């Protein structure tokens, strides 16, 4: 063969090998997705989060920073996408407005105790799950009549607006009376005041609230659902979603997920359940 042809062939092969290898190293290089390009051009990732979930997403009133497992995950994604973990803007959301804000493009992702379910998959996409929770029950410490979800029959339970809790409880205790309030502190106050008998929500949230006011509450401790929490992504950004999944897989493999769990959750929630990312 002529030398020129060998050289051309060799450089072609080298280029192909380089292209195949490059994404694995530079996982933050941009595949074809307008959302990711938009984020990189903007220079920061806009994250919708509750800032109201102890251990997962709390706004430190003194430093102004958002702290917790979900906040750290957001920073990890921002670092991989824009190069710095500080390039994050946290937007406070509630269960009521988190999906509309995602759909309207006000936030790029929602990382906010958002359970993956089929009803939501009709309107948004999910990456993850990044955490497996289970719904549980919080009652006043002196109230021993509620020992399982079935005991909620005939009692009044507080649930949050915009969550899946009510439907799940109805499967086990259809005669439960429900009151919906807008946020966790309101439900907790209602239990303290005696307005309702129980507050039902993700066990992780309840543990955080019980921490806030020690010795006032009893958590039943028997999660009656399996709640995979996922990162909410717009339906129009499939490549972005796949990219986030790749980052989550990577963080599980290289121990980052475990590190973040140990830093934020292990003390209160015990042993981690490492999630399996859904493709």
């Amino acid at each position, binding site marked *: 063969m002529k030398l020129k042809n060998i050289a051309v062939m060799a450089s072609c092969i080298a280029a192909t090998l380089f292209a195949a290898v490059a994404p694995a190293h530079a996982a933050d290089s941009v595949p074809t997705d307008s959302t990711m390009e938009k984020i990189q051009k903007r220079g920061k990732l806009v994250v919708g989060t509750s800032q109201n979930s102890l251990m997962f997403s709390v706004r430190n009133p003194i430093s102004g920073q958002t702290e917790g497992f979900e906040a750290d995950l957001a920073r990890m994604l921002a670092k991989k996408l824009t190069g710095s973990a500080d390039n994050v803007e946290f937007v406070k959301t509630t269960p009521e407005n988190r999906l509309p804000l995602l759909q309207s493009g006000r936030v790029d992702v929602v990382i906010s105790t958002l359970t993956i379910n089929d009803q939501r998959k009709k309107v948004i996409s999910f990456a993850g799950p990044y955490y497996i929770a289970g719904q549980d029950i919080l009652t006043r410490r002196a109230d021993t009549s509620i020992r399982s979800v079935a005991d909620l029959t005939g009692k009044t339970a507080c649930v949050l607006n915009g969550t899946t809790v009510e439907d799940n409880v109805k499967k086990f205790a259809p005669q439960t009376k429900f009151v919906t*309030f807008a946020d966790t502190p309101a439900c907790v106050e209602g239990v303290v*005041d005696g307005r309702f008998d129980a507050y039902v929500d993700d066990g992780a949230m309840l543990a955080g609230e019980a921490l806030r006011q020690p010795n006032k509450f009893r958590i039943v401790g028997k999660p009656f659902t399996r709640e995979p929490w996922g990162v909410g992504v717009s339906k129009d950004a499939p490549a972005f979603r796949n990219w986030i999944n790749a980052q989550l897989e990577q963080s599980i493999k290289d121990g980052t997920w475990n590190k973040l769990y140990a830093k934020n959750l292990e003390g209160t929630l015990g042993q981690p359940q490492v999630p399996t990312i859904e493709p």
Partner: protein
Amino acid sequence: MESLPSFAWRFIQGMGVTIELSLLSFAMAFVLGVALTVMAVGPLAPLRWFAATYVEIMRMTPLLALLLLFVFGLPKLGFMYSLIASSVLVLGFYTAAWIAEVLRAGVNAVPPGQIEAARSIGMTFTQVLANVVIPQAVRTVIPPLGNLFVIQIKASSIAAAIGVFDITYTAQRINFETAQAVPTFASAMVAYMLLTVPLGMFMRRLEQKMAVAR
């Protein structure tokens, strides 16, 4: 996916709750407003002071803040009312101040000469009020009272903040279930208008009938 008639039924039920909240609270506000007005125009200075202070406080406080204080603060003092009762009471206390102002303006619109004349022929304060002032004041106050009732219907939507199933909260739930914000909240607007527009037309007819030349 739930059917359209099923959604419509939920809105109708929501309208029922909104009507209930508006009527009960307005009735309470009217009774309280009359009492406040009598205090405000009466001879006893401490009562005049109390009425004036009450009206000022209610006019300076946002309705939602008042409701949340009632629902979350009162139980700490030992009083706990149901969520509907709390909504009715707060709406009633709040609107009473505005009704009192309207009634006071109506009373002050009665020519003072008539009151002097009534006193000079020996009528007591109560007789003057019942026979001279109120019959004439009624004509002045009906339009503003009608306005306040329309406002009350819309203000009742604060009950949605504590999960009462009025029109607004029903819309929020349907929006959560279907993620269709535009048709859902447009329907909520229609539901409110089905209440306020006929009321407005009725008020205009009433005004015309009462427009007797002085």
